[in-house]
């Protein structure tokens, strides 16, 4: 029935869509149901014994991820308790100044990088597929890889404090303090957290593709759960916020390891560049933490109000609007750095403007609660606490957004109070609400109502006792990050109150943690939809099944469990899509971005060791350089590449055994996709967008030095060799053209020519890389920031050139071994897309090294 000439990626869905009511009414025979369940159970079985750790299913990875982030939070919380003990009395000598520096640095870094952001990814991996009626995320092994990377990096970073080797320059690592600091603390921070940032970007790619392409048929953008909207916005923010920090880390580590003076003003560098790059990341980060947590509130509020959310479009507006505006705030962390007042004005204005969308979503929640019939459940109690605390934090935020006020309280405990109010109200409370609310979904047990109320009141009271007095402590002039203070300044009693409060919070968390881990074997089976929610996750099956959803429903409303009668019954019977796993593979449906028309059946990957190996080797590549052990690092990097290639080669974009698959309800879908139809292509696109942002940050660096430095490039400076730059750029451009050409030739069936192009292209790439290296070889990167910046651009493009070469060879090998054919060419589409970005990167690099400095 399929034309053999059509590339498999161009095949269309065939048959009936959407399903008619008669089709949905037709019962599924009992024996068919039984057989289907058996097949699904086999395909989605979680491995037993110690093989359990090879699982990649979102329900397993999400649970590990959540628990790991929670444990890191508890450890960071203990660090806070130690600091509060030290501050209990003036002139205390419980903890040395050095250890105190390590404690506050690690407390901030761990809470941000090891708890808040990973927690968003963890919770999303755990529940997003259920919101979308999907079997799993589109790239389960990528989630698993991200998790193992996070675990390894997290233990490395947080463990350093046990050896008193932890970073101690503050969570923002300002140079010159952090660059000249002896010891390996700063390197641990830079390399360990870069590694985790990469895991975060991997999760963002996964989540964006999940929200855009793995929604159930019919779930158009105007009916998708608000949580999915937030995931989209936050994923997009991660792509634009994390890369500047990665670029900053890259420069910073080059300075620490090789003495390239990016932040050393005696050689033309400027510590302010770090501050800009850090806070271009750091401020959106606050919203990256806040938005997904408030998204949990957006799921809980309608359930407790027992009515649809009021102002769905308004909440979408506020999520998207906050996402944008949050990028215009970063300098409000830098008000005291001496920038022109008029520049501060822009950031002050944007900081006040972001209050509008942020406020709108809170008002939408309050309006929903007013309009509904509220049942004060435990999750709602936490949400109510969140709203109260966050509003207080928001009000002090409006105050500190005003530059002259900030000058008074900058770096005092007032700021500590403000940020903890926003983060507890904006993140901790809503996340705990989410844990209580979703616990019956992901553990099929209930948490204790009584313990939950105890935990709430202890944490809520303790929080206010700790942080409310800090406003005053700060206004009275106590600076942050100072290990002790003299007595008699009127701040002794305030510090004592804060310390008492901190232990009350800790007691609350102890109860909460106990409630989560205590054995619940005796608990009777819970109700399937204990809170009476209307969204798809409450169609989950009890007792637990591992297949996600029994069949993937056709969704036409925002609250399908409330508004689509018989939905759950039909899902259970396997009446909807993909009720079976005949071939024994894990599969889910891929749909179109706007209207969620079904377009493809996506095979998703199953349990594997390779992801753990890939993460371990990647970890080695990042961890060994901390100790200046470069040879083992390079070996690890090579093994990481080999592991990833093995993983991709054996399981992704393999030609399927048949082109079309009957997914039920009279619909047949292609089993293979290439180009913009394929989830893999989207993942490459999104990843490269992040990569391009990091590169743009480096280019920004060049212009930044030009504006901040009276002599950049310094007069009479030696420039890169124009000839080599021109040749290198041309070689990259040609390699790019050959890659693109190979795609067309291969599609046209001219496989020989395509292979020739794919064989010639890597040679050109290598010569291009050589050209860029030779062009800057005569410059001394340690002498001045100008040659250092040229070297940094060269390193960037060469590193990408290596990846580009490997990809070209991967496609060549694919073509030679029958993985890549004229009909099945997804790999070549993805590699071409990568090369579009690499080609542009090389052109811009050529201009930045060869042309621009000569004109400055």
């Amino acid at each position, binding site marked *: 029935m399929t034309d053999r000439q059509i590339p498999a990626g161009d095949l*269309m*869905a*065939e048959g009936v*869509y*959407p399903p008619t*009511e008669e089709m949905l009414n037709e019962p599924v025979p009992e024996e068919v149901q039984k057989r289907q369940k058996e097949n699904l159970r086999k395909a989605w079985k979680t491995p037993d014994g110690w093989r359990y750790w090879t699982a990649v299913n979102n329900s397993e990875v999400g649970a590990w991820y959540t628990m790991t982030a929670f444990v890191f939070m508890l450890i960071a919380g203990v660090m806070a308790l130690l600091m509060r003990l030290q501050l209990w009395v003036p002139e205390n000598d419980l903890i040395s100044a050095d250890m105190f520096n390590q404690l506050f640095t690690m407390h901030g870094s761990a809470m941000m990088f090891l708890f808040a952001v990973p927690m968003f990814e963890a919770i999303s991996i755990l529940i997003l597929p259920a919101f979308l009626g999907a079997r799993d995320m589109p790239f389960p092994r990528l989630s698993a890889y991200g998790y193992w990377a996070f675990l390894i990096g997290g233990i490395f970073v947080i463990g350093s404090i046990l050896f008193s080797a932890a970073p101690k320059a503050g969570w923002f690592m300002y140079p010159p303090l952090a660059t000249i600091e002896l010891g390996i603390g700063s390197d641990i921070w830079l390399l360990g957290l870069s590694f985790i940032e990469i895991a975060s970007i991997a999760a963002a790619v996964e989540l964006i593709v999940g929200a855009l392409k793995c929604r159930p048929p*019919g*779930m*158009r*953008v*105007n*009916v998708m759960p608000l949580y999915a909207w937030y995931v989209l916005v936050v994923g997009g923010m991660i792509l634009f916020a994390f890369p500047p920090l990665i670029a900053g880390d890259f420069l910073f580590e080059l300075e620490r390891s090789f003495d390239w003076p990016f932040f050393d003003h005696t050689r033309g560098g400027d510590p302010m560049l770090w501050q800009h790059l850090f806070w271009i990341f750091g401020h959106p980060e606050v919203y990256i933490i806040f938005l997904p947590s408030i998204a949990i509130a957006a799921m809980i509020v309608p359930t407790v109000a027992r009515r*649809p959310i009021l102002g*769905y*479009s*308004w909440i*979408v*507006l506020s999520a*998207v*609007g906050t996402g*944008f*505006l949050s*990028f*215009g705030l970063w300098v409000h962390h830098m008000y005291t750095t001496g*920038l*022109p*007042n*008029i*520049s*501060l*004005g*822009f950031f*002050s*204005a*944007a900081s*006040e*403007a972001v209050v*509008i*969308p942020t406020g709108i979503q809170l008002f939408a929640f309050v309006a929903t609660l007013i309009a509904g019939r509220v049942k004060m459940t435990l999750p709602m109690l936490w949400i109510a606490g969140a709203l109260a605390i966050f509003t207080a934090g928001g009000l002090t935020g409006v105050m500190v957004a005003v530059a002259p006020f900030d000058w008074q309280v900058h770096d005092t405990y007032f700021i500590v109070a403000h940020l903890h109010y926003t983060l507890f109200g904006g993140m901790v409370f809503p996340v705990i609400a989410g844990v209580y609310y979703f616990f019956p979904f992901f553990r099929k047990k209930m948490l204790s109502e009584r313990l939950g109320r105890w935990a709430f009141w202890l944490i809520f009271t303790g929080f206010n006792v700790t942080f409310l007095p800090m406003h005053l402590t700060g206004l009275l002039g106590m600076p942050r990050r100072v290990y002790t203070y003299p007595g008699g300044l009127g701040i002794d009693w305030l510090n004592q109150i804060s310390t008492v409060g901190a232990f009350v919070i800790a007691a609350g968390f102890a109860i909460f943690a106990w409630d989560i881990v205590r054995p619940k074997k005796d608990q009777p089976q819970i109700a399937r939809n204990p809170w009476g929610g209307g969204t798809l996750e409450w169609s989950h099956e009890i007792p637990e099944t591992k297949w996600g959803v029994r069949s993937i429903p056709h*969704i*036409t*409303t*925002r609250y399908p469990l409330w508004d689509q009668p018989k939905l759950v019954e039909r899902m259970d019977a396997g009446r909807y899509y993909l009720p079976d796993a005949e071939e024994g593979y894990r599969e889910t449906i891929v749909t*179109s*971005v*706007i*209207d969620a*028309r079904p377009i493809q059946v996506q095979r998703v990957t199953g349990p594997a060791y390779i992801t753990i190996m890939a993460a371990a080797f990647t970890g080695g590549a990042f961890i060994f350089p901390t100790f200046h052990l470069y040879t083992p690092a390079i070996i690890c990097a090579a093994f990481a590449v080999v592991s990833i290639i093995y993983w991709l080669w054996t399981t992704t974009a393999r030609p399927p055994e048949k082109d079309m698959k009957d997914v039920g309800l009279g619909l047949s879908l292609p089993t293979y996709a290439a180009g913009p139809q394929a989830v893999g292509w989207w993942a490459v696109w999104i990843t490269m967008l992040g990569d391009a942002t990091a590169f743009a940050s480096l280019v920004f660096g060049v212009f930044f030095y*030009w*504006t*901040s430095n009276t002599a950049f490039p310094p007069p009479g400076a030696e420039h890169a060799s124009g000839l080599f730059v021109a040749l290198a750029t041309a070689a990259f451009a040609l390699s790019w053209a050959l890659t693109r050409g190979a795609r067309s030739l291969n599609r046209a069936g001219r496989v020989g020519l395509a292979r020739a192009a794919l064989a010639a292209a890597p040679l050109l790439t290598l010569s291009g890389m050589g050209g860029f290296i030779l062009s800057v070889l005569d410059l001394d990167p340690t002498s001045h920031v100008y040659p250092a910046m040229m070297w940094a651009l060269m390193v960037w493009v060469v590193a990408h050139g290596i990846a580009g070469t490997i990809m070209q060879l991967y496609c060549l090998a694919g073509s030679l071994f029958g993985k890549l054919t004229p009909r099945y060419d997804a790999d070549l589409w993805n590699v071409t897309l990568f090369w579009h970005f690499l080609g542009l990167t090389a052109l811009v690099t050529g201009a930045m090294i060869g042309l621009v400095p000569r004109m400055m």
Partner: protein
Amino acid sequence: MDRDDHDREPQPQPHGDEREFSEERESLWRIAFAPTIWAFHFIISYAAVSVYCFKFGALFDMNTLRFALIAMTALMLAAIAWIGWRAFLRWDVRDTGEFTNPEGSAEDRHQFLGHAGFLLAIVSFIGVVYDTLPLILLGSCR
């Protein structure tokens, strides 16, 4: 459910209303246009003022730069207003009387994107006005 029958896929060409609301004519990017203008306004204002203050402060008067940027603001506000108006028409609240569009139909999705785009245009407009205030109120780099 019945509204959904409008754009049955993958069927032969739909016509009339269905075609007007077809997925191919829609783009998620469109709701981001107005905030993107805000972003450009923000970046251009900040970059221009920084470069002026650090590099060209001695060459020409700051007022020239301020007026140029305020003129740019006027153009960008006009563009946002136009985007907002187009989005308002797509929301189509005056004809349908529907303020919310919660149904799983092509028409509701179309109007919802109009509504979201309209609201984002308003926020972006306010954001641009806010970010222009420093240019109006402050006249020097210090």
